[in-house]
């Protein structure tokens, strides 16, 4: 299996694309959320495939373990009612307009990517256009390297981000609480 990585890449890419389409197309938000879980898991696999095991684990822990639980919690709290289910087909015209626009965007960006890689990467030496996963694991794949980075170079941003999380938590509490008091 010479190019098992490539096959795996296509597999995960297919799952990701499919599940993300599922997220935006399914009329039941609960099922959309489940599609999103699938997406996150395959994205974690993709990270692993690209050589970032640490991030792959983190992805599962944070997104699937924390954020998606929160999402499902909220969905269960407010939105699992039939009247909240959208009839996707009834909005066909609008969806077409948006999809056309996005297709145009895609074409534009793809053209840009191909042109960019042809002109910049291929012609100039010293630039690599492929990702050598196995070589990278030694340098960057270990949690050890990441922790060195995190607690030496990125110490201040790390502390700041913890503050951001704290503020986010307090903010969430305040926002959700304010209206309840008004209601009472």
């Amino acid at each position, binding site marked *: 299996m010479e190019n098992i990585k490539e096959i795996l890449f296509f597999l995960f890419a297919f799952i990701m694309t499919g599940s993300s389409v599922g997220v935006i197309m399914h009329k039941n938000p609960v099922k959309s959320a489940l599609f999103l879980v699938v997406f996150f898991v395959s994205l974690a696999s993709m990270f692993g495939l690209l050589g970032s095991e640490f991030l792959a684990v983190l992805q599962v822990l944070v997104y699937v373990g924390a954020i998606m639980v929160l999402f499902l919690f909220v969905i269960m709290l407010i939105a699992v009612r039939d009247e909240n289910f959208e009839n996707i087909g009834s909005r066909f015209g609008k969806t077409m307009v*948006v999809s056309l*626009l*996005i297709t*145009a*965007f895609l074409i*534009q*960006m793809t053209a*840009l990517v191909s*042109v*960019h890689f042809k*002109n910049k990467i291929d012609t100039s030496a010293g630039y690599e256009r492929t990702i050598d996963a196995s070589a990278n694991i030694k340098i960057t794949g270990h949690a050890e390297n990441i922790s060195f980075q995190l607690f030496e170079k990125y110490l201040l941003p790390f502390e700041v981000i913890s503050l951001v999380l704290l503020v986010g938590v307090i903010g969430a509490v305040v926002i959700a609480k304010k209206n309840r008091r008004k209601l009472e």
Partner: protein
Amino acid sequence: MSEALLITAIWLPFIGFLFNGLFSLKKEPISQKAVILFGVGSVLLSFIIFVILTISENAIIMSKTGLGAHFFTWIDVGHLKSDFAYKLDGLSVFMAWIVTGIGMLIHIYSTGYMEEEKPHFARFFAYLNLFIFAMLHLVLGDSLPLLFLGWEGVGLCSYLLIGFDYDKDFAAEAGKKAFITNRIGDAGFLIGMFLLFQHTGTLNYDIMNKFFSENSLDTSLLNLIAICLFIGAMGKSAQFPLYVWLPDAMAGPTPVSALIHAATMVTAGVFMIARLAPVFLGAPEASTFIAFVGGFTALLSALIALTQTDIKKVLAYSTVSQLGYMFMAMGVGAYGAGLFHLMTHAFFKALLFLGSGAVIIALHHEQDMRRMGGLYKHIKLVAILFWIAAIAISGIPGLSGFFSKDMILEMAFTYKYGGSILFLMGFLTAILTSFYIFRLIFLTFHTSGDAVKKMKEAIHHHHDEHGHGHGHHETLHPLRWNILGPLVILGVLSVFGGYVGLPHVITHQTPGIVQYFDKVLAVPPTELSKSWHNHIDGGLAYSLMFGSILVAFIGLLFAWFRYEKQNNIPSEDSKKRSFFVNLSFNKFFVDEIYEIFLLKPIKKLAVFSYKVIDDKIIDAFVDALGKNTLKIGSVFRKMQTGITAHYAFYIAAGTLLLTVIIYGGIK
């Protein structure tokens, strides 16, 4: 110390204005005593300060630069620098005495005259105080902008006080007429000021005087400036053709007529010419023009005064006529004589007005002389004082008016450029003055008629017509000390005020007042205008003097003959009047001529501008602008759907567009 005192004296009336003005806004009128304390007290104190300053700082005040006081910087732009700085020199101290002195007397008088106007008492004194404040700026400012500030300030007060009874249409109209007529003059004044600034680079008197002593401007330019400034004086000092507002200004309360429209404000033009003596003395042609305008105004308004039946109207035209005399004097270069007449006129005309005010108030606001007569029996003191003032104004020797008027006539006679015509106009005016003033006296105080009886009849008549009267006035309104006191003081001044200028033929030296002004003005007028005059010997001067005495007595005798002997009370029926009497009675139809040739075309133009230019062009344009903006807005407001997805769509589309613009060109 003395600088601070000077500023205090000028700003004291402003404190009175603030106090009275603010309290006049209250619905409940405040106590008259408080109003009097601030209103009269501030002017009295100001007068006392001027007396003290004149005595203690005499040497500085009499010097060329005078006592200066810098209060604060007002305008400082480029070369134009104007401060609230004051200058108390020989000329301004003279004016300050007149303004605060006579002003104070009239304030005291007003406490009696206005005491029945309870709701407007504080407002009246607020305006009077503001007037004194503005007038002090006019005379004491050390630069033309400050003079102009005062000039406009007194104009504003004049407007406010003419229209004091603003619920009466004629008063409101008269106020507007005064204001608008003055604006025409002010335009000229401003242009003159601009020209002066352009060519001398300053508006400060001291710097300007220095400039004129070192440089000389082109005579034709000076003529232009002088004429422009004189146009301003025409408006403020009621000279032909802008005199029409002053007679109407009599709609204001009588103390106002005495203070503003006789003694002080209307003499601002004369003061201004004296202040800018270097300009006017350097402009001989403009001066001739001024003299002739003055002479013509004097004659014309004296002719109108002959037949007026409203006691205040007679005095108003008399004022215009006397102002004409002053300008005649200024025009022929006799600044001392003009300012001398300004002073004596202030005395006797204030007395005449206050006297007429006393008569009016005694008769419960009756102003028509045809319904007066025989008042001598009832109010002797007023009658006697009225006689004194009349003798003074008519030029009967011994009293103040004789000296000043005679000096003007002599100077006019010797004037090289048309002096004989000027003299003739002045001489004729003198006869007419004497006649109309004694006519007024005979009609009011003498003749067989009895004002008290007429007043009763008028009330009964009124009763018959309307069924109800506004109160029963069977007796004269009593006159108290605060009305009679100022009258007596002004009477004394009218008698003796002339002795500061005894004529050359008696003392064989230049009259004292002329010497004074030669000393204190920026340039000595007598010396500079010497070449404008012929030499006159003693004999001719004597005969001129006797001539003017003679005409004064002729006027007196004729008035006595016509009104006392023949008892010829003017008819109310215009058909019984002769053509010339009618012409004079209707003021030579000047107002009507203005109406036809000036007002109507202007009104038409205004209506045209309003209906066509404003309504159809400007308004249409502006309306279209608004309407189209609304239309465009109503198109674009549809974009604001309130649906978040639409906004997100715009963002995405914009990003795409940007990507295309930025990267689309990569080959």
